[in-house]
């Protein structure tokens, strides 16, 4: 059983590495040079893919929060917190790559327009998720409050998604008309491969993060056992 898990983990690592390298190859060798922005538009593929993974990760936390409130099982809490950590890394990636793309195209690294403002707030909200967890001692209370927080914090995902449709913004909307980009089928295929590669990378890293949390639990149980039976217990 353990060997099967290790094999699956190894397979996932190999698959996600190959997928990311393939996506990278397509970004630089297959996707055409965009006519208006030039080569800097190639940031788009990994920028969108990392945003997708960040949103998906927070959706997993949202579902895990519901799962924890419904069944109060530790595995839902582990999934929620692991997904937040991975999601945060990818949303940070989105914000930084977005700024680097904005500088040559908009003439500034940052502007307080709706999508960017919501992204910044979202980042802070999920950083606060970690702070909330480290501030609480009682494991059950920590898991329950974190579940509620993860559910409420998810509101930033649809808000960020719809920000460019509801409000006047300079952020491009690729799904409805290209957002000022000359979007070709080759660009579409490259984006799809990038999305698939990043999703695979998310699953691979999430799996390792879950394993880490389970090891932390095993260590805590062993420590508690030793303290009860050998330090404060009858064996002393």
């Amino acid at each position, binding site marked *: 059983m353990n060997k099967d898990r290790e094999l699956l983990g190894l397979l996932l690592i190999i698959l996600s590495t190959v997928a990311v390298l393939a996506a*990278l190859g397509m970004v630089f060798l297959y996707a055409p040079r965009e006519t208006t922005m*030039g*080569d*800097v538009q*190639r*940031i788009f593929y*990994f*920028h969108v893919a*990392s945003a997708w993974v960040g949103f998906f990760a927070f959706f997993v936390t949202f579902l895990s929060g519901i799962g924890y409130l419904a069944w109060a099982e530790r595995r839902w809490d582990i999934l929620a917190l692991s997904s937040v*950590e*991975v999601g945060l*890394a990818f949303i*940070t*990636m989105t914000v*930084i*790559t977005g700024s*680097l*793309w904005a*500088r*040559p195209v908009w003439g500034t690294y940052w502007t307080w327009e709706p999508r960017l403002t919501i992204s910044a707030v979202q980042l802070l909200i999920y950083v606060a998720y970690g702070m909330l967890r480290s501030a609480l001692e009682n494991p059950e209370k920590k898991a329950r409050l974190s579940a509620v927080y993860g559910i409420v914090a998810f509101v930033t995902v649809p808000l960020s998604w719809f920000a460019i449709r509801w409000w006047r913004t300079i952020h491009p909307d690729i799904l409805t008309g290209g957002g000022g980009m000359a979007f070709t089928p080759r660009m579409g295929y490259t984006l799809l491969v990038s999305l698939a590669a990043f999703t695979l*990378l998310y699953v691979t*890293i999430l799996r*390792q*993060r879950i*394993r*880490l949390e389970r*090891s*932390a639990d*095993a*260590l805590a149980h*062993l*420590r508690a*056992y*030793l303290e009860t039976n*050998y330090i404060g217990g009858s*064996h002393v």
Partner: protein
Amino acid sequence: MSNLVYLLAAYAVFWALTFVLVVSIWARQRRLERELASLAALLEESRK
């Protein structure tokens, strides 16, 4: 030409953040496994 700097920086950020995340998880896992092994050995020894 100067725009390429932003392109390269963006992809460097992707690799750097992925590297930091993976290495941080790996390092924490190693530390926990070492602690688990030493506690398990301690338990085994005290049972003898």
